[in-house]
């Protein structure tokens, strides 16, 4: 999301760009700890040697909720499902796309997909069942 003056959030917006280009990634330290950008220090071991690694193509939904009372930024989107999916070294929180919220269940295989908010037209990190 860029602000009113078009300023982006370095690291995060580039990550969304990478997802749109089919190059989703996470950051990994030499000890194999994963994290999401922007990040300079591994929170697990303190390593500052972080490199981009391809995100596994799919993750598995560990938990989800259908939100009926949203913030103003998602007023037109509700009700929508939000899930946490496990991609191995990292988990990702995203909005379920391409599936009725009531049909979401744990264990579902999903891939990251950038969607657009119906309320704000801003990019939203989604998770799409494969």
């Amino acid at each position, binding site marked *: 999301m860029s602000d009113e003056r078009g300023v982006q959030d370095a690291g995060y917006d580039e990550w969304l760009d990478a997802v749109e280009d089919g190059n989703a990634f996470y950051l990994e330290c030499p000890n194999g700890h994963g994290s999401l950008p922007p990040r300079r220090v591994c929170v697990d071991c303190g390593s500052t040697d972080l490199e981009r690694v391809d995100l596994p193509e799919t993750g598995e939904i560990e938990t989800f909720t259908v*939100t*009926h009372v949203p913030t103003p930024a998602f007023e037109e*989107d509700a009700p929508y499902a939000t899930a946490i999916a496990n991609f191995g070294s990292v988990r990702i929180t995203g*909005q379920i796309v391409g599936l009725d919220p009531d049909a979401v269940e744990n264990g579902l295989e999903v891939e990251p997909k950038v969607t657009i908010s119906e309320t704000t037209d801003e990019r939203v990190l989604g998770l799409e069942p494969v």
Partner: protein
Amino acid sequence: MSNVRVVGTGITPFGNVPERTGRDLFAEASIAAFEDSGVPRDDVEAVFYGNFMGELAEHQGHQGPLMAEAAGVRAPATRYESACASSGVAVRDAVYRIRSGEADVVLVGGAERMTNLGTAGATEALAIAADDLWEVRAGMTFPGAYALMAKAYFSKFGGDREDLAHVAVKNHENALPNEKAQYRSAITVEDALEAPWVSTPLGLYDSCPISDGAAALVLTSEAYAEENDLDAPVAITGTGQGGDRLALHDREHLARSPAARKAGEEAYADAGVGAGDIDVAEVHDCFTIAEVLAIEALDIEGVGEGISAARDGRTTADGETPINLSGGLKAKGHPVGATGASQIAEVASLLAGEHPNSEHVEDATTGLAHNAGGTVASATVHVLEVVA
């Protein structure tokens, strides 16, 4: 090490008063605390003040000096912000200040003005306690975050919405005689189960209300309390704080609160007590599932067992360890910056035999207050004991 005495407490009624400013709320709470304490304002050496969303709700930053002024105190003041644990961390630093010998008398508390934002505005303001990039922008709300934890808990340990409904029923029941409580109305399990969804599996009665309110405490050293012959039988004898990753998805377990466990272990060790010594506790039940996670993290219940505690009567007013006799955040209300200090006030009052629900814990000597921020990326625990 000197015990820190709770010599005065003040809580405004929690509720829906959108027109009242934060400074007016805190002034009311502080007047009550000073009247209760018998301590002159001039003796206060420092003010520790918790507030979360003052910039969003009132366009007001730099609230420390403003609130000292509202309380009629000239001492230096600092604002603490740790989301819904803001005044919990303020109390902790106040305790440390007195223990260190650097101060004998402090004013500590918090306030929050929320209802003027409306439901959508307050939901948005609360959401800033989460990771903006990786949670909020994906549409995660605060009820949504606790719903994700509730669903993860059900999957891992079992339990269902009806178990959670019993937590809400219990806390509403507890609030009935509490004049400060926002909701003084009994509800049934059916009411809770039939209420509109907020974020599945949590419904309206699983969620604390949006509240305005303030709480204030006058804390002193033991020496000051004794020299001035203050009627202050309760002391804060243990303090602990835990932290965790900000985003829920970065936690090792989605259905546990390790920050609360760490805070509890530290506070128990500090006070020289164990979970089994706790006679009564106020825990941070911003959502029904949060009470379950809290009592497990505090070892009041075993992991995976807390879900049945309210249903089976272990945490009800007449149970083994009554939880949230004030009504909790659920029914007393949750003006977030005031909550941590108000919990200390409630426990002190319960232990002193001055609370409308003290009859349920007549022999209680040891109490606990647990305050949490965000999805428990911050947690404080304080142990209170009757010492005089």
